[in-house]
């Protein structure tokens, strides 16, 4: 087989392990990290109705990665279908085993590797974030340099590549969407960044509606369209915080708002209105118009797919045709609407509630 190195020509030649070798070395490295950090800290979750266990080598990364998943904590831990072993270099004195990259020699962009459908990895060089999945084994690894190197957006929606890869082979399709609802069911809010998804979703939560996510969630369509919550977090531009005084207590990074979006962990303030999932009754395409009134108009499934699929699939490593097909199935199953947001944000929850009652 012809071989082509992934490293830049200036990088020193290093003998690299083969894929399965590397999986073994990741196991060994995590075990060593846990020993040095005082043991394994275990958190069990139910995500997309699958039992998932996060195993942290010591406590350092727990407050950085676990809060966004807190609403999905398993009431009764079950044998995990997916186990994610997590460590950082600083608190465990354990780096990542030499792989196809290292911090010094990494290409400036992300590097993705796929060994068929079995082994997948992605490395983001700065800050260094390594995600690795051995799919048939149900084993994944996440490594970074230190707790402080976890960016706020990773805390808000942690472990995305691993969840995307694994869930896609277990009946759950990642979706770039917010999800809110009432007792009548849920609405998926879709569109590219800046379309108004987060603000609309938080306005709905603030108005007393149910909330299943503001940016990423999981979809299943086999037993009717259903949105499974993934993260209980929300993100807002700091200048939009004033619109939601009731949510200020949920802000996790109040000391860094000069440089970061406000990151809110909403389960802490909204309790059981942050739900594990909702049956999808409508797809809504918000659009910030700033006019006098908020208007709702039907749109085609194709328009909804155009709003949902590119922003879901293009940023994700190793997106498949199957992902596009799954999102298309969803858009065919429920009515789709455009929501033209007026100046009065309070009208949006009312409009969505009305839609859900009618759908």
């Amino acid at each position: 087989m012809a071989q082509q190195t992934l490293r830049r020509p200036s990088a020193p030649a290093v003998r690299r392990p083969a894929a399965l070798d590397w999986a073994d070395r990741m196991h060994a490295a995590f075990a060593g990290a846990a020993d040095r950090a005082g043991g394994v800290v275990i958190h069990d979750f139910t995500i997309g109705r699958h039992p998932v266990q996060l195993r942290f080598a010591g406590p350092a990364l727990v407050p950085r990665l676990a809060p966004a998943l807190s609403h999905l904590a398993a009431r009764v831990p079950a044998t995990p279908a997916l186990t994610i072993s997590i460590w950082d270099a600083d608190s465990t004195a354990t780096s990542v085993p030499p792989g196809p990259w290292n911090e010094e020699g990494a290409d400036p962009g992300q590097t993705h590797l796929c060994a068929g459908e079995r082994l997948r990895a992605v490395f983001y060089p700065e800050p260094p974030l390594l995600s690795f999945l051995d799919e048939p084994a149900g084993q994944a690894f996440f490594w970074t340099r230190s707790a402080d190197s976890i960016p706020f957006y990773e805390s808000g929606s942690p472990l995305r590549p691993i969840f995307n890869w694994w869930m896609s082979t277990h009946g759950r399709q990642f979706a770039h969407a917010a999800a809110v609802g009432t007792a009548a069911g849920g609405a998926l809010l879709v569109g590219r960044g800046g379309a108004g998804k987060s603000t609309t979703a938080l306005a709905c939560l603030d108005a007393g509606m149910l909330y299943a996510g503001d940016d990423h969630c999981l979809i299943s369509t086999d037993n009717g369209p259903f949105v499974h919550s993934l993260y209980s977090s929300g993100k807002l531009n700091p200048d939009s915080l004033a619109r939601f005084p009731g949510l200020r207590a949920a802000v996790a990074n109040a000391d860094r708002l000069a440089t970061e979006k406000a990151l809110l962990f909403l389960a802490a303030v909204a309790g059981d209105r942050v739900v594990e999932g909702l049956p999808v009754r409508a797809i809504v395409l918000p659009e910030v118009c700033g006019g006098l009134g908020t208007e709702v108009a039907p749109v085609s499934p194709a328009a909804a797919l155009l709003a949902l699929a590119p922003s879901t699939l293009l940023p994700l490593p190793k997106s498949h045709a199957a992902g596009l097909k799954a999102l298309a199935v969803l858009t065919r199953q429920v009515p789709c609407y455009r929501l033209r947001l007026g100046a009065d944000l309070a009208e949006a929850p009312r409009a969505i509630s009305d839609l859900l009652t009618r759908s």
Partner: protein
Amino acid sequence: MTPPSERFTVHPKIVSETIDGEVIILNLDRGRYYSLTLAGTDAWSAITRAANAEEIVDALMARYEGSRTQIEQAVGHLLGELSREELIVAFAPGSAEAAAPPANGSVPAAGSTAVRRPFETPVLRAYTDMEDLLLLDPIHEVDESGWPNRLSEDRQPLP
């Protein structure tokens, strides 16, 4: 028109879905996405069956009212656009790309041919707003023994 021996197929890096008479096309490598409607949707459907230009024209003639010359010109223009955007690739029968069975004779058009609609030149709508979010490195396909070495070009999956 392109030579009859030249057939077209969807580029292996492309995923597409037809919904409600509209095709949504994603170029996963370039971070661009596209849509086609009406005759464009029918042309895309023919391309997914490894049609040549003449067969695509036949498929559109069966569904739309228009002169053959007008439709031939529109198809030629569309094939050029799709090729430039790297959404389709041309191949000759017998080449590796011909793994999918080529269309024999006329390509069946989607839907009923009972009522022909007035022909409108297909427009490829291109959206580039996601390009900034494009993964900066391509995905490197490897086999388990070869990681971290990239799968060689001659083992890339065929369309």
